[in-house]
């Protein structure tokens, strides 16, 4: 019997911890965020299902933002195909091949950043692994989460994957050029479903193929960048201390 409290087991110590399990990732994400702020880079974490059109959106973005410097990191399980497509579209890109990991985390992004010159970059797009579940859990240090939802995925995806859409700052409804062939998919129902998981749903319908809606998306990017980095120039004088 325990002499102190009579609990019967002298060696058992209860410890009240109350720690976020992902605090390590949060620290790394904060470090990345500081890095982006120093360079005046607006970073977008672009998520969505496999085949939702993430890479096509970025290709169209490059065509719409020719006066800006873009860079990208492309997360992929097994190939560097997306990175090759983005490089061909004129976006300097580093592939992050995750092997079996279903998402990017802040540390993977940080390591890839060492291979990317952020000086004179205006926008960094992190194309996450195609997946509507896991990537939502990990903060990468981005300014905004943007989710690509293609009309061919159906109206109910926001309700089926509430965590992903709840964390989205903006939803790009992609492939709207296919809507005439999909009478059962209605944009207003997608909006209604988003309003059930996002308190302030922000939705931009677009087609990377016809470029319908791309100007709205580009305008959103420019507005947010001006808002975040009003000077438009990087504060290169600030010292940046790298962790180990």
């Amino acid at each position: 019997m325990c002499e102190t409290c009579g609990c019967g087991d002298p060696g058992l110590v209860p410890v009240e911890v109350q720690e976020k399990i992902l605090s390590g990732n949060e620290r790394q994400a904060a470090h990345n965020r500081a890095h982006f702020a120093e360079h005046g880079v607006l970073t977008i974490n672009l998520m969505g299902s496999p085949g939702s059109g993430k890479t096509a959106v970025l290709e169209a973005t490059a065509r719409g933002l020719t006066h800006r410097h873009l860079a990208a990191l492309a997360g992929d399980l097994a190939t560097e195909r997306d990175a090759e497509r983005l490089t061909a579209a004129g976006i300097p890109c580093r592939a992050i091949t995750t092997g079996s990991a279903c998402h990017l985390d802040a540390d993977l992004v940080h390591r890839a950043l060492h291979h990317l010159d952020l000086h004179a970059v205006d926008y960094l797009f992190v194309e996450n692994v195609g997946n509507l579940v896991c990537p939502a859990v990990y903060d990468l240090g981005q300014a905004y989460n943007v989710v690509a939802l293609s009309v061919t995925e159906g109206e109910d995806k926001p309700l089926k994957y509430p965590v992903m859409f709840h964390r989205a700052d903006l939803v790009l409804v992609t492939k709207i050029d296919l809507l005439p062939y999909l009478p059962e998919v209605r944009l207003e129902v997608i909006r209604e479903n988003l309003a059930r998981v996002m308190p302030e749903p922000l939705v931009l319908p677009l087609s990377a193929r016809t470029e319908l809606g791309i100007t709205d998306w580009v305008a959103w990017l420019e507005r947010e960048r001006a808002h975040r980095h009003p000077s438009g120039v990087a504060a290169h004088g600030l010292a940046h201390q790298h962790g180990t």
Partner: protein
Amino acid sequence: MHEYSIVQSLMGHIEAQAREHGAIAVRHVAVRIGELSGVDPELLRSAYDLMRERSICAAAPLSVTPVAARWACRQCGASVAAGGPLRCPACGAPARLVSGDEILLERLELEVPDV
């Protein structure tokens, strides 16, 4: 399935706590998982059961407290029901998540040798 990554991070916290307290084993692990955290309690449990073998947690059962998503009005604080539009029924302002996105290590029970 990212629950293995979550358990890896969890093990890191537990090992740090065990070192700090001079523990030789962990006897119980209690976590809190929100409904909108993106972590599935059952998948977390099976990942934990696979990964705890041969670790300091080999003899530590895991208890998971699920936390339901609760929304409230950003302006007036009135509670907003899930399932409908996430707007305040009283004043129309957008809701904010009050609880339900936590991924938390709450408590441990450590086996500490007498000194």
